[in-house]
């Protein structure tokens, strides 16, 4: 597919003898948001960790702009243009906001330079709190920082693991509007979420995962089709 940034080909992951992801294939192109929804334990987060090299893929492949990422270390994958916003944000709470952002520079492929201006522009709040400990920020502010840290690396593909988890509705709106802005900049986004309808409406297409298998793919026009969504969840 032209413009394809990330491609999963028959990805299989298992924890011991328990399969977590079974033969998952999907693509993410530049300027696209692809949703990944499903019940707890469906294999959504495992898929993202397999892309990042944090868990071992038993079979299949993960391609970034046509090049296989299999067997590469998490830091090598981060440095090749894939950034993850992990579940629970996983900030370094005792470091300042600016230090957390500077850590994002570790994943940047090009010259590092100053490099934080663009994220301060996107999240002005972070500039105001740059000397504050990340752990002292509110949940919404921490989520913005986690997204900003990933963007500092200037990735071509952004993976997000439940970015709206535990946030107030107004902050969730902010997160989704930020994703729309990031998409306009040409990044490919793979979004794992529990807010199913919201994700289907925001994404170019959304895959429903259950028991590690792809059950259904939905378009934004099908965001109201809760019957099919529920059936796929329960499959």
């Amino acid at each position, binding site marked *: 597919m032209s413009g394809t940034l990330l491609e999963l080909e028959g990805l299989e992951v298992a924890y011991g003898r328990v399969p977590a992801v079974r033969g998952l294939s999907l693509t993410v192109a530049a300027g696209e948001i692809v949703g990944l929804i499903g019940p707890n334990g469906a294999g959504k987060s495992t898929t993202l960790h397999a892309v*990042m090299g*944090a868990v071992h893929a038993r079979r299949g492949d993960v391609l970034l702009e046509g090049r296989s990422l299999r067997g590469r*270390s*998490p*830091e090598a994958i*981060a*440095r090749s243009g894939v*950034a*993850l916003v*992990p579940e629970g944000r*996983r900030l*370094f*709470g*005792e*470091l300042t906001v600016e*230090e957390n952002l*500077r*850590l*994002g*520079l*570790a*994943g*940047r492929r090009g010259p590092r330079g100053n490099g934080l201006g663009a994220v301060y522009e996107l999240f002005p709040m972070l500039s105001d709190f740059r000397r504050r400990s990340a*752990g002292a920020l509110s949940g919404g502010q921490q989520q913005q920082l986690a997204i900003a*840290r*990933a963007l500092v*690396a200037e990735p071509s593909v952004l993976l997000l693991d439940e970015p709206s988890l535990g946030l107030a509705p107004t902050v969730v709106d902010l997160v989704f509007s930020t994703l729309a802005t990031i998409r306009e900049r040409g990044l490919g986004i793979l979004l794992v979420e529990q807010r199913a309808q919201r994700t289907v409406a925001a994404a170019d297409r959304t895959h429903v995962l259950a028991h590690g298998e792809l059950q259904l793919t939905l378009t934004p026009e099908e965001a109201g089709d809760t019957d099919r969504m529920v059936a796929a969840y329960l499959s």
Partner: protein
Amino acid sequence: MSGALASVLTDFLGDALDAQVQVDAIGLGAVFALMAVGIGLVFGVLRLVNFAYGQLVMAGGFALAFASDRGWPVAVGIVLCFAVVLVLSLAMDVVVFRPLRGQSPAVMLIATFAVAFLLQSIALLWFGPLGKTAASLADLNRPVSVGDVEIRKITIVAIVAAAICLGLLALLLNRTSIGLHMRAAAMDFQTARLVGVRANLVSAAAVLIAGVLAAVVAVILTVQFPTVTPTFALRETIIVLAGVVVGGMNRLLPATLGGFAIGYVSGILGGALPTAQSQYLPSFVFGLVILVLLVRPAGLFTRGRPTVERV
């Protein structure tokens, strides 16, 4: 009876507060603080208690003795000491620490035990049980008079060297990218890797910095104890390990303070105990260690909340 006890305590306090004893205790605390930083830094980043740290100091000591034996200039001996310790540190990281990354703490501890005894056995084969003498820097044992106090030059060197090393380390950790990466790796190694921090680089940096500190300690200890044997620095390492745990292993500052404290207390007890009772020094020190651990199991210098940062 109570009068005799009061008299013993008065004598002890008088000796402990003596300026000479205080300076020597601070000097010992400085050396132990350097060792504590070396052990604490590696533990912070790799989650590994490096029991072989003392054998790095021993190897540095033998390098100095080797150079001294051949009559090489002091500077060459010191360069050789640093080179040997750093090469061994890097070899330990590449051959043992990296392949075992992610294994259980017990596996890694036993691995460092094995490395420690391997290095000790090699030293025994090469240099024999009586070891060698490093005499090049013996002049530093001469005292200088500061007021009424006679201070050995090496004590001043130890205190100044510790202050410089710790200052430089603080600058490195707080002002450089590699320092930031090391601090992040110490807090959450997996997440640090996911944002692009190179695991091998931060691991090697921690091990090499610890190696530099071990080499500095080797130079200082060989002045104080010129006979280098295969068990050189072993006793000190065990005491410092206890100090690191007493101070608080999860953070670098409490670990360093723990190392300093146990060195300082050893120095005070060593200076104040009557000569006839000096063989009881380790019993007193480790008795205090047990007491502190019973009262403050998380560490004497940690704040009363769960710790997140490990460096």
